[in-house]
């Protein structure tokens, strides 16, 4: 079955529901196809999509000047669509996008709502994983999602007013008030009542060396009855301060969306910009990018496997993994210039070439890591005290994972083997066979096994990448962006699918940047998988998912 075989069925069902969907120029957001919808059909289209099992990969809005299909491209569209969406003729509109995926084929739904009355049916009733994305979208652009089951604020705390929307053109980047921002003390958490029920508020400043966020537990005895997350503490206005940057500047910002996924996020942003400007990075750069992305995957999995073991008191594995990770990071600094490989990917290619003797060093490293990790993973896999704590702990069913749209190790451990590298491959993965681990147990132990397998698969991939490393240039200059050019980046990071949308303004600067981290879908998974577990198992459950705070707060 090819990647888009489901599309005719989807279109037929839309037609059967009398939903008007118009295909638009498909080169714009390649590899995704595009469908333009009337705003009133927005919710119903999601219902049809959910019915045939499409995964939702996120929703975002573009409220800045010139949003929507640019004039230069509008000529390619049927007249009606152009009139609907042409932002240049009618700047008082907010363009809204939703990305769907099935069997590796992507589809972007687009619509536009008037700035004066930006009302759109919510897709959350059909896709629960969209809950916070739509609330984020509302807090930043003012789009009102009608029928959303939870109208509370999400990303907005107290730094700006309820009726101000930072991503609108009239909102100054510096903000409107310089005064101290009070704590968001009256956020209406849901409460649970009953005899013996008590509440544990945690955060935003946690006890460990971790990012800030708030967790509100309702517990009875040791058992967690309910967990509610409250994030947004590290909202740094990334989408706003991206505006007007040049491609290099955007790549630097993308590298800091989420420090542990710096390679994957930079790659996704550069891929989006390269697609927008029809400029392909040279093959050697693709190979080096993949090499770095796999290194990032290995480093993070090593760190997390160790931390998961540490959270249940098994410090042997923690120390062993920390040691291996440190050696790995030192090599990254030596060969790629930075311990996390930050800023190593740049628009049009990579910043630095690999030296001639690096291949041998890396291959020896891979062998050494394999030799150290395999016996270690054997211990982790069947150590009685670990089994006792990790098996059945933090269970996420396949239905729950699918419902939320989880990708990455969380999805893979719950039976969803989607991986962008295999299912919608981008260079160089289109030339490589990517083996994707899949587990069905959905517990912490399964997530650990997925990560252990991914490390071993990454080692195989990296060996192959080194053996087939093409010669030639590592960077080409990015072509000037046509006014209003848009691009979609789709990269598999170690947490899962990263989707990045970029739109250029008329001067070759960035008008809109939206990096969608996979954490948007795994944070709600944590709320579900913790239920019924004991409070002391929260750290290990949390670590097994390891959502990014910074990647979601933006």
């Amino acid at each position, binding site marked *: 079955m090819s990647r888009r075989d489901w599309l005719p069925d989807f279109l037929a069902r839309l037609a059967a529901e009398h939903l008007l969907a118009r295909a638009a120029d498909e080169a714009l957001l390649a590899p995704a196809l595009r469908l333009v919808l009337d705003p009133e059909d927005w919710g119903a289209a999601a219902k049809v999509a959910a019915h045939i099992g499409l995964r939702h990969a996120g929703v975002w809005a573009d409220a800045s000047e010139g949003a929507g299909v640019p004039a230069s491209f509008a000529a390619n569209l049927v007249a009606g669509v152009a009139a609907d969406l042409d932002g240049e003729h009618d700047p008082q509109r907010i363009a809204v996008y939703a990305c769907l995926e099935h069997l590796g084929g992507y589809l972007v739904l687009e619509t536009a709502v008037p700035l004066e009355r930006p009302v759109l049916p919510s897709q959350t009733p059909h896709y629960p994983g969209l809950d916070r994305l739509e609330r984020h979208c509302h807090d930043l652009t003012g789009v009102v999602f009608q029928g959303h089951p939870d109208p509370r604020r999400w990303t907005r705390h107290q730094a700006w007013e309820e009726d101000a929307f930072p991503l609108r053109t009239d909102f100054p980047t510096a903000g409107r008030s310089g005064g101290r921002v009070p704590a968001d003390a009256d956020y209406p958490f849901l409460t649970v009542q009953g005899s013996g029920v008590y509440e544990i508020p945690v955060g935003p*400043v946690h006890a460990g060396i971790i990012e800030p966020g708030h967790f509100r537990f309702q517990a009875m005895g040791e058992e967690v009855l309910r967990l509610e997350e409250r994030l947004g503490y590290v909202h740094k206005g990334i989408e706003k301060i991206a505006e007007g940057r040049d491609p290099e500047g955007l790549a630097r910002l993308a590298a800091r969306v989420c*420090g542990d996924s710096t390679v994957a996020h930079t790659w996704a942003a550069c891929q989006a910009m390269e697609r927008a400007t029809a400029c392909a990075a040279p093959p050697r750069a693709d190979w080096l990018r993949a090499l770095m992305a796999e290194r990032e995957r290995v480093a993070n999995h090593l760190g997390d496997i160790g931390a998961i073991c540490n959270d249940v008191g098994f410090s042997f594995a923690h120390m062993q993994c920390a040691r291996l990770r440190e050696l790995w990071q030192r090599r990254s600094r030596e060969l790629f210039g930075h311990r996390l490989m930050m800023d190593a990917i740049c628009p049009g290619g990579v910043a630095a070439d690999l030296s001639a003797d690096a291949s041998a060093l890396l291959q020896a490293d891979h062998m050494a890591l394999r030799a150290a990790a395999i016996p270690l993973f054997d211990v982790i896999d069947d150590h009685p005290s670990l089994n006792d704590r990790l098996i059945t702990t933090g269970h996420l069913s396949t239905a729950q994972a699918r419902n939320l749209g989880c990708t990455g190790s969380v999805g893979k451990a719950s039976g969803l083997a989607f991986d962008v590298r295999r299912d919608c491959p981008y260079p160089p993965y289109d030339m490589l066979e990517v083996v994707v681990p899949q587990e069905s147990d959905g517990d912490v132990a399964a997530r650990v096994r997925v990560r252990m397998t991914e490390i071993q698969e990454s080692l195989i991939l990296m060996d192959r990448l080194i053996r087939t490393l093409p010669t030639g240039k590592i960077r080409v200059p990015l072509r000037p962006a046509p006014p209003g050019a848009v691009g979609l980046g789709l990269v598999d990071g170690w947490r899962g699918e990263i989707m990045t949308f970029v739109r250029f303004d008329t001067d070759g600067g960035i008008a809109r940047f939206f990096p969608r981290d996979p954490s948007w879908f795994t944070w709600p998974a944590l709320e579900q998988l913790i239920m019924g577990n004991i409070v002391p198992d929260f750290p290990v459950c949390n670590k097994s998912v390891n959502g990014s705070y*910074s990647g979601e*707060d933006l």
Partner: protein
Amino acid sequence: MFRILKQSLKTGVVTEAAPATDDAELERLGIELRRHVHARLGRSLAIRQVDAGSCNGCELEIHALNNPYYDLERFGLHFVASPRHADALLVTGPVSRHMETALRRTWAATPIPKLIIAAGTCACDGGEFGVSYASRGAVENVIPVDVKIPGCPPAPLELLRGLLAAIAPGAAPSADPGDHQND
């Protein structure tokens, strides 16, 4: 059990294996650090790390200080779970406006005298994020800072060096609450 012993024995004590170029300096820095910690703080420096808006890059490197190569605790430095137990705050990130009050409260909860260390380029000068509707920029825009450790993120050795600077003679801990006392 035997597999664990075997792996541990085979791995050995990596902390003292010092062939890499870095490690001599690590030892030197560590010993100097321990001397200052002993002299000024009575054998231990308790550090409370606060992420005030970082991208998590700095946290990864601060974590690395605890790995067996750096093994920070042997120098008398350790990370504590509460600001009330801390001698020093190690603050990362540009201070997001949403974390501003939490950071002030953490600062107020830390007993005097206290050292405030800004770790990472963002904490030092706002970095890539600067000052905006969502960010206050540098940590010193919100609470007084004694020492800055630049770097994006600072590598573990740079962090060690910065911690040393923080407790070296001449770097007086901030005792003056100034106008930053309450939120």
